[in-house]
């Protein structure tokens, strides 16, 4: 039976990160883009914990992961507040239609 190694974790993390990027770049809905960001953050967490487990033999990675989870929660709270605000101003959450940065 094949032992679960670091490669497996990294593959999962890559898949998860790619999905996150895909969601961030392709979804029109701002909430879904935020979810993409969460995917990417968690992919990074997997990497941190995996590296910590297989290479460092200490808990640095775990601690980092915990910080990332906390920051992600905070980010989600702030971002959702912004999204609500955007919705209230533009009456939509479609990123394409909020092109205020152009010129």
């Amino acid at each position, binding site marked *: 039976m094949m032992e679960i190694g670091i490669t497996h974790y990294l593959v999962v993390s890559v898949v998860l990160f790619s999905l996150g990027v895909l969601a961030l*770049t392709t979804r029109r809905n701002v909430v879904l883009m935020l979810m993409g960001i969460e995917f990417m953050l968690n992919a990074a967490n997997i990497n941190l914990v995996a590296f910590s487990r297989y290479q460092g033999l200490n808990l640095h990675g775990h601690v980092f992961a915990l910080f990332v989870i906390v920051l992600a929660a905070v980010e989600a709270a702030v971002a959702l507040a912004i999204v609500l605000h955007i919705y209230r101003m533009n009456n939509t959450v479609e990123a394409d239609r909020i092109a205020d*940065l*152009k*010129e």
Partner: protein
Amino acid sequence: MTADTLLTLTLIILFLPLFSFALLLAFGKRLPRKGDAIATGLMFLNLGLAVAVLFGVYALPETPAIHGFAQTPIQMNFKWIDFKTTIEVFGNTIPLQIELGLLIDRLVAIMLVVVTLITALVHLFSIGYMHGDPKYHRFFAYLGIFAFSMLGIVVTNNLLMMYAAWELVGLSSYLLIGFWYEKPAPGYAATKAFLMNRVGDIGMWIGIMILFVSYGTFRFDLIFAHIAAGNLPFGSDAWLTAAGILLFMGAIGKSAQFPLHTWLPDAMEGPTPVSALIHAATMVAAGVYLVARTFPLMSGDALLVIASIGTITAFVAATIAIVQNDIKKVLAYSTVSQLGYMILALGVGAFTAGFFHLVTHAMFKACLFLGSGSVIHAMHHGLHKIHDHDTDAQDIRNMGGLAKKMPVTFATFLIATLAISGVPLFSGFLSKDEILAGAWAFGSLQGQLAVLVPYVGFGVAALTAFYMFRLVILTFFGEPKRPDIHQHMHESPATMTIPIIVLASLSIWIFYSFNPFSGPSGWFVTSLPAPTTVTGSNWYPFAHGDLTHGDVTHGDVMPGDVMPGDVTDEAVAQGVEDRTAAVGQGSVVTANPSQEAFEHRVHESHLPAMIASLILALSGIAVAFGVYKRKMIDTDRLVEKTGPLYRFLLNKWYFDEIYEKWVVLPGVHLIARMMHWFDSRIVDGAVNGVATITMLQSRMSGLFDKWVVDGAVNGVAYAAGFFGIVLKKSQTGRIQAYIAFLLAGVVILFYVFR
């Protein structure tokens, strides 16, 4: 006194007036009495030194004659410029250098006394005459520089220094004639004097250069020795004659000889003491002195020219003097005429007579000028009293009857007039008699047209007596023509009368010869024999019997001659000595047969010449008394009858008009045209050229600005705008596009930094 003492004294005499000039010019205003006492004191000190030198020179033992000098003169030389190269002069290699130096002989000693005496007395006179003038101290300063320059001419032993002093005299006379430059006439007169002198000086300079190029030296003794040794300039008699005539041109200018005589009467615009100093006694005598100095090198042909010029001058000026009405103009033309006499005397070969007349004339003419100054001073005083500013103070038609008012001036004026007229017991008789004897001898020896010289000489003697007594009678005798001025006139102060008295007493025979009827037996003439000419057979051919042409010629080795080969080793070591020896100086001076024949004839001519001149002078005086005192002839009717001749004389033979028409105006026109050409072509061309170049340059600069500088500025702006437009496209405003770019960037960076 030793030679060294004499040289030292002479140097002091030369530089004291320069010191006076510098002192008064720098501190004149701040000195007590504006420095006149200091200047006058220095001049009298100078006079004392000059008298000491005179006695010192005469106390020296007799020395043998050298070429061109009757006695070996005392000399001092120093090297001024050494060109550090050598030149070849008549087979001798000599160092090319310019020497300056002093020369003292009896001629110089007498000139020193004459110049310092007149200068000192004129200083004294000026204290009274120039009193109250705003430029009082400057006047004395100018007198100082003049005395320095004049003494420079006298004491030099070379032509270069003489020329320099000559020009300095020209400058100082310019300053003194134009002293009252705020009035137009003195300014013009000063310019005229200066320019006319320049005309003569150019000739003189060419003459000096002919001699320098030939002999490589300016020294008189060396030049004379060369000529005596047969070394003619460029090997030709003609060049020697030319050099003599060109040197004489300087004298024509300075001594106011025909045709350059017109400056002197105009120079009377200067203050009267200046007229006495410069235009009677010293500066105009410089020309005569030059001819006397260079007399030995004058060939017969050159002397003939000199005699002719002198004769013409004496005659022309005497005729003009008859009809002039300005007291100073009469004296001025009289001076020109007497200078003509001196030049005539030197020209005919009567060296001593010419120089003798220079000295006696200096005394009595300075006396006359200062006397006229005294009269003019009194006239000014009288005019001032009656508030008359239009009447001419110098016009003898406004005078008359001054003898009672100004007894001292009258007495001295009369003595000087008797002297110039050639009346016995006065100095002028002695010297004029010498000249006329010389002219007589010349006329009889030369024959042909040369007899005109003594005839004109005698005629001028009569004319001189006539016009001088006309002047005296109109000024001092008879009834005053302007009683209103006359009553306010009075004798001048002592500072003015003392110089006149001194000069008048020096016009008495006793100072020159104890026998009042025999000049040649006096100390003056016997102590100053004519130097033997160095021109040999090029002199007047008087000795027909004794000297056949070609018998004694230049270059023949005489017994006792020191030839170039005999130069001693010690002499060669010193360049200066080398030159002296190399030209054979020290060879025996042999008498010139022609000159001896001339002297002999002069001796024979004395008595007839004396009698003739006496008769003519007395008849001239008698005519003057008859016409102007007794009124035997009505002068007004005479003027009417001889209208054209009178006007011709009154207008001074129209010399000024002729020069104006034929020389000055064409000259001015030519110069004006040249100046116009220069101005329009060269100056304007330069200005316009600069303008054109500036315009061209500015146009190019404009183009550079427009295309390069502006182009760079606009190009940067355009580029910025261009990239702005291009890069603006990427700013879509879509957040996801930015994220896509970001990812693409990360991917690219990943590959770059892998």
